[in-house]
């Protein structure tokens, strides 16, 4: 049986408890996506047209350094949100996202969701409340990584 995108969106933990009308609005911007191991979901400096909600598999968030090559700074897993750069201008990715294994995800058209959020601020506010927790968690994690807690002083 083929699941409808609306059902898939509704079942994803990121949208837990979302009003059915909002689920329908989000689903209108969403589609299924699949990435093979090693395939990139997006690259740094590309236009952030889509973001992804992972259903299966893991994704490496990478920064490229000329001396060290690709450095993974975070891995994302089932249930996680992949991609935040679509939220703020200039809507360009600031890192690469690579599928570590087979990844299945909900891909959301960022411009479509931004447009619907502008038209219905209640949807925009609901979305903001959903995006803030992972944003804050990642900021906190980045702070801990920045101070190198496992260094000789740790």
């Amino acid at each position, binding site marked *: 049986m083929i699941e409808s995108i609306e059902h898939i969106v509704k079942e994803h933990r990121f949208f837990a408890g979302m009003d059915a009308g909002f689920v329908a609005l989000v689903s209108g911007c969403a589609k299924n996506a699949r990435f093979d191991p090693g395939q990139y979901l997006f690259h740094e400096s590309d236009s952030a047209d889509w973001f992804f909600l992972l259903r299966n598999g893991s994704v490496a968030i990478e920064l490229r350094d000329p001396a060290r090559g*690709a*450095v993974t700074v975070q*891995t994302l897993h089932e249930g996680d949100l992949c991609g935040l750069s679509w939220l703020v201008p200039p809507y360009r990715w600031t890192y690469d996202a690579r599928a570590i294994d087979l990844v299945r995800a909900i891909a959301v058209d960022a411009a479509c969701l931004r447009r619907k959020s502008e038209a219905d601020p209640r949807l925009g506010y609901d979305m903001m409340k959903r995006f803030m927790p992972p944003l804050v968690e990642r900021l906190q994690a980045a702070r801990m990584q920045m101070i190198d807690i496992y260094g000789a002083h*740790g």
Partner: protein
Amino acid sequence: MADAFSAASIADPMIPRVARVVKRRREIADVVTLEIEGGAFDFAPGQFNMLTAFGVGEAAISVSGDPANSARLVHTIRAVGAVSRALTELHVGEPIGLRGPFGRGWPMQEAEGSDVIVVAGGLGLAPLRPALYRLFAEREKYGRILLLFGARSPADILFRDELEAWRGRLDIEVVATVDHARGDWRGNVGVVTTLLSRAQFSASNALAMLCGPEIMMRFVANALLERGVAQERVYLSMERNMKCAIGWCGHCQFGPVFICRDGPVFPYSQLRGLIAKKEI
């Protein structure tokens, strides 16, 4: 009545006995494990010894070996100062001074019947390893066992062979994460606190043992409390500059407690008001 602090009772714990290094293993770049023999070494998981590098000085080092093996004492040491560096440079056959064991260890008995969450960061895995050996040896006494381990990079993962062997067991869950990695690392990348959100355990019947950088323990302890684990059931192993190891000198005083005598393992409920205070 004999005074608990009489000269007779205070003389012995201050005099090191002489043992010998029988095995030396480099774990990672600046960390060495020494195996020592020279008598019986009974200890509880989480306790520490004062080790002497003769002619250099003495340092407090947690026991990292199996408490079931009292014939051989194991210590894992990171070279961070003159004494610890001298200890890591000892060779097989050389003498080493030893006082101990000291302090209160992990609450192994209290953990019985509970889900046990072990969270280690960096070298913090060493003081937890005796507890893990005990948990594995008496597996039937505990509920779910989770080991969450964080390190700076894949090259900094302590006891990697053992971690991989433990991960192969079907009766424990082992998750390692690093702060950053090259592209060939297929494991998890992210701070150790992020592992907790996916960890499966019964918060109402869980006991946590944390050891690592203090900031890591603070954040993990708070994350556990958010998950519903009681603060009396979250235990931290604290580190301060210990000298006498028996609560006399005050070097390791932490507010109203001495880390050496009253710890190094404390319930978070005892430290929560102190650990975030920068004045202490």
